[in-house]
């Protein structure tokens, strides 16, 4: 990215450096003024006093409200992903079926749940659960809503991953006499799963953020909702939401970095040795080309007339 960006402007000379410095100073001063203004507003509304922030030093605040909330968030997110993965795999494979009567319903299900807000799904799941089991379960509503949505999203990820496996793999598998189900389970899926792992991990970020939807209408006491109860107890709404935001940012940045790490790991694991061989093959090919070019030159024709004739068939 940085290489691409540097294409957009020259390496700064003396004048450009001066302009950059001036812009930096003006922008920096603007940021400082903004920070000062924010802090002064916070101070004038008594948000920076010790009593607003000291509840975070009390163990009770964490053990009663914040950590159970965090646990509820992570629990719902983890369970949703664990269920959504096989659901997504099934839907994704069904969408690539040779039979229209499997392919079409799967496609409709995937597109339907992808185009509906998760809150709506959670509300429906809440009512459905209540109707079937005669008991309110916000947790089940959140998990069902997240599974329906993310299962459909992961179905597309699975489909893309399977389609990305080179065609030769399928052809070779059929050629050695494997059946359709064997080609999918032994050959295509294992390769697809490694290539789509980064996408699945980054979907985790979406799931963790979406658990917060459960706190709005179906009343699941995840981190945000637990935090608001803590805040009304200690009378520190702004500090609590600030701490919760930081918690979310840390979790999601870690997940994001995990996704990048997995991607890099997989690329080196799969591509490393292959790339070396390819690079070697390429240089050989280049050398061969150069030889051909040399042979094509009129001057070298007298040296190796036979080869020259072989390459130049023009009369």
């Amino acid at each position, binding site marked *: 990215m940085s290489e691409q960006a540097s294409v*957009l402007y020259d390496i700064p000379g003396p004048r450009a450096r001066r302009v*950059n410095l001036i812009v930096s100073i003006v922008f920096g001063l603007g940021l400082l003024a903004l920070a000062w203004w924010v802090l002064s507003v916070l101070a004038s509304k008594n948000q920076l006093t010790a009593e607003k922030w000291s509840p975070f030093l009390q163990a009770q605040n964490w053990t009663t409200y914040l950590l159970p909330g965090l646990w509820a968030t992570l629990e719902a997110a983890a369970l949703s992903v664990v269920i959504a993965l096989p659901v997504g795999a099934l839907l994704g494979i069904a969408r690539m079926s040779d039979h229209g009567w499997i392919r079409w319903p799967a496609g409709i299900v995937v597109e339907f749940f992808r185009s509906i807000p998760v809150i*709506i799904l959670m509300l*429906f799941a809440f009512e459905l659960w209540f109707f079937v089991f005669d008991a309110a379960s916000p947790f089940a509503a959140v998990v069902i809503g997240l599974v329906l949505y993310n299962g459909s999203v992961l179905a597309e990820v699975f489909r893309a991953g399977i389609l990305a496996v080179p065609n030769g793999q399928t052809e070779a598998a059929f050629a050695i006499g494997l059946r359709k189900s064997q080609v999918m389970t032994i050959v295509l899926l294992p390769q697809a799963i490694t290539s789509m792992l980064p996408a699945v991990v980054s979907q985790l970020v979406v799931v*963790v953020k*979406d658990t917060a939807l459960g706190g*709005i209408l179906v009343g699941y006491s995840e981190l945000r909702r637990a935090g608001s109860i803590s805040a009304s107890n200690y009378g520190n709404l702004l500090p609590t939401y600030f701490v919760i*935001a930081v918690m*979310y940012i840390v979790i999601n940045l870690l997940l994001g970095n995990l996704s990048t790490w997995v991607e890099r790991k997989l690329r080196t694991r799969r591509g490393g040795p292959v790339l070396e061989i390819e690079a070697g093959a390429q240089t050989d090919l280049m050398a061969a080309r150069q030889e051909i070019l040399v042979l094509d030159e009129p001057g070298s024709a007298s040296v190796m007339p036979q080869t020259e004739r072989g390459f130049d068939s023009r009369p």
Partner: protein
Amino acid sequence: MDFSFLSDPRYNVIGAFWMTVQLTFWSAIGAFILGVVLAAMRVCPVPLMRGFAGGVVNIVRNIPLTLIIIMMSQVIANQLGLKLAVREAGVNPQGYLDTQNFRLAVLGFIIYTSTFVCEAVRSGINTVPPGQAEAARAIGLTFIQVIGIVVLPQAIRAVVAPLGSVLIALTKNTTVASAIGVSEAALLMNTLIENESDKFTAVFIVIAAGFIVLTLPTGLIFGSLAKRASVKR
């Protein structure tokens, strides 16, 4: 299945979806402008601006939208006193609250969605061939001109389809505004389910159909727009 609630004057289904459309419309315009500005800042020659834009994007993107919207209302407006609507004395405060909450929600959606617009536009900038920017620099254009006249127009044409997905996600995300009492589709569904709990399947079908009617054409329109806008190379 009983759809009688559709003709009940207590429930304004069309009005709720009109509110969803309005939320989406104003948020989309604001998020597009802010997102493009953030993308330009992320690739600009001033390191401080690059760092600032990158930091903002990485922070905002990782906070749940629910938390942002609720903070807009409870923290920014109620505790810090941000007023986005005029409150007239002697008038029913409901109108003021509705306008205030609507504008707070739009502001929250703009802040959240602009980070996704920024990432989409930035990936579009990467698709513009380096020769374009080099040629622009060679004829003596400044950075603002290079990015504004040459690079961004091509970058945005390349990311029409991803921007369409961002718009669809925004349409669905407007349901979060129900958390601060904006009377859009999700809040209506909540009310309907509470009052007509025996018809919850019919309610779900109506609300789901409404969102499909909103998001399906968006996807189709942006798909064909993307084909027409794509830069032939």
